[in-house]
């Protein structure tokens, strides 16, 4: 089974580049050049130096002793929350800004849900002196205010998306529209493994640093580079793609992708795409999408703005269809409780996105001998208001 992208950008039957002609030259230019640029020695050197000294890589692979005792398995946390800006997102934005520089672009646009990708984009734009415009759903701007202020402080212009559900999906539409209207000087930094080819592959490659480090660190700590499980949450799926990347062909390593069930898979307020989705095309690629019988995209719901997307990346649709990854769905409540659990057991306040991955530990039939790596994709500072205001509701029983 092949889990990498083919020359037309497909993972099995998912992927491709379903874009209007207006975007063809931009996407084609990127497709022609991204691999060559990523393999240039000067690029690799500049990227690796910044990953080390600016981002703070390698991030630790931490053996979580008390969490391990709680779940009765050997649990390691890959601490992407310790990256500069507080999440894995910067691995990708840093790579893409260096690529944009080599493509001769001057203006950067991005979409953001929780704001982590927006902050990571605004950060690297400040670092390299690029103009930065971040599209963000009006509702997300409200619930992720600190990140909006961070982006502004970093010099980015944050533009509210006021159409549709006013969340990530609509912010993505607005960013694509901006790109259609400004094709020459603008690079669009997509924040997840979604969008037209080559974005899913390019973003996965930039995030693959996560699994590369896990392998080396695990080998050092346990003698084996392969754990029994690698677990990551999936909205679009960039942190999961990064955590899975070097394990895709290691059949013995179980890959677990955790989606947001929201208020419950059948509640009408969910973001569990593999449970509720059908194949379709949105934002430039064929993938699993939550949609009506008429092919209208439905609004996703999750307590975590970063998982609130009605689709998943085409690579994940392929992993689902082939059975290579197991997909689980975690409710808002379960995620919330797991955030509190991790905080109390390990002194780590996780992002709400990452707490979905933590919550899945209770759903797996773990054995005491199992080695489990959970990708802790981001830290919870940005979610503090949610943790404060919704405590009563989620912790009452």
């Amino acid at each position, binding site marked *: 089974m092949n889990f990498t992208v083919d020359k037309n950008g497909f993972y099995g039957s998912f992927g491709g580049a379903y874009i209007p*002609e*207006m975007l063809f*030259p931009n996407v084609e230019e990127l497709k022609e050049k991204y691999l060559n640029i990523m393999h240039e020695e000067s690029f690799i050197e500049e990227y690796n130096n910044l990953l080390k000294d600016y981002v703070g890589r390698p991030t630790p692979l931490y053996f979580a002793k008390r969490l391990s005792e709680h779940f009765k398995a050997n649990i390691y946390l890959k601490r992407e929350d310790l990256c500069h800006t507080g999440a894995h997102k910067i691995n990708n934005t840093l790579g893409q800004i260096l690529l944009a520089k080599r493509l001769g672009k001057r203006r950067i646009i991005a979409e953001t849900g929780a704001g982590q990708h927006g902050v990571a984009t605004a950060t690297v734009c400040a670092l390299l002196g690029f103009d930065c415009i971040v599209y963000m759903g009006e509702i997300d701007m409200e619930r992720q205010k600190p990140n909006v202020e961070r982006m502004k402080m970093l010099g980015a212009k944050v533009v509210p998306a006021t*159409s549709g559900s006013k969340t990530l999906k609509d912010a993505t539409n607005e960013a694509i529209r901006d790109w259609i209207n400004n094709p020459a000087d603008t690079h669009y930094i997509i924040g997840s493994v979604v969008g037209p080819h080559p974005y899913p592959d390019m973003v996965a490659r930039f995030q693959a640093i996560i699994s590369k480090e896990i392998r080396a660190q695990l080998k050092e700590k346990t003698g084996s580079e392969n754990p029994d499980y690698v677990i990551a949450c999936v909205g679009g799926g960039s942190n999961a793609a990064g955590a899975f990347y070097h394990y895709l062909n290691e059949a013995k390593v179980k890959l677990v992708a955790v989606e947001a069930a929201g208020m419950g898979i059948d509640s009408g307020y969910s973001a569990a795409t593999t449970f509720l989705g059908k194949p379709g095309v949105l934002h430039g690629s064929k993938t699993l999408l939550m949609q009506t019988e008429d092919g209208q995209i439905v609004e996703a719901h999750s307590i975590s703005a970063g998982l609130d997307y009605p689709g998943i990346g085409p690579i994940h649709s392929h992993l689902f269809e082939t059975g290579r990854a197991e997909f689980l769905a975690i409710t808002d409540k379960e995620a919330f409780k797991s955030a509190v659990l991790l905080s109390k057991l390990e002194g780590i306040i996780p992002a709400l996105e990452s707490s979905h991955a933590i919550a899945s530990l209770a759903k797996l039939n773990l054995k005491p001998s199992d080695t489990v790596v959970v990708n802790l994709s981001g830290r919870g500072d940005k979610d503090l208001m949610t943790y404060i205001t919704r405590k009563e509701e989620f912790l009452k029983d």
Partner: protein
Amino acid sequence: MDTKIQLKNRLTTAFSDSKKPLLNIYFTAGYPALNDTLPVLRALQNSGVDMVEIGMPFSDPLADGPVIQRSSEIALENGMTIKGLFQQIKEMRKEIHIPVLLMGYINPVLRYGVEKFCEDAAAVGVDGVIIPDLPVREYIEDYEEIFQKNNLSNIFLVTPHTSPERLKLIDEHATGFIYAVSTDSTTGNTKDIRQQEAYFSKLKASGLKNPLMIGFNVRDKESFCFATDYANGAIIGSAFVKAITGSKNLEKDIDVFIKGIR
């Protein structure tokens, strides 16, 4: 080797029959009200429009600007669906003789089933389809045969940045006409198309086998006349949708708008 079947439908003959520049009007199905689709179509024909493009509303119309996007949202709230649209225009050919195109995004068409969609469109008398997010490569590989079997034209977009090689490929696989997007923009932008003289001249001189229609940012008599100096006709969308928004008398307002163009 050209193995393509030459389509002949109302659309392809419209260009050979017409001596004057063709006016193509876009409107969104089920807008302003759910049952306005056929009345709008009828009024457009009565006002002397040469062909129409009926928009199939989609929740995420990323090539469209705010006017058409809003009309799509309202049409969806009104309950418009592809199935419902086919119901509404089932009998249209009893009274509508101008070419009719459907414009929309690929996802609802995929959900409906491309083959069934083409069959049902042909059955109600649709002549062609415009799907901006169905690129030419995917069309050739997966759908060209189905379109040809149903005698449906597929209209491709080209832009100022489409390369000569790609323009040639598109011309080879297009039937009906080629839709030249006037400037780098989504629909309903306010960019001035008069700055595009060089691009239009190049297109006109490129020896395309298909007729050329210019669209995006064509909004009034002046821009229509300018565009049609370089093409077989032009397409007006957002300006027309804006004109019928809030209309108390669709027939009259449509007639006034069209008479204002030519």
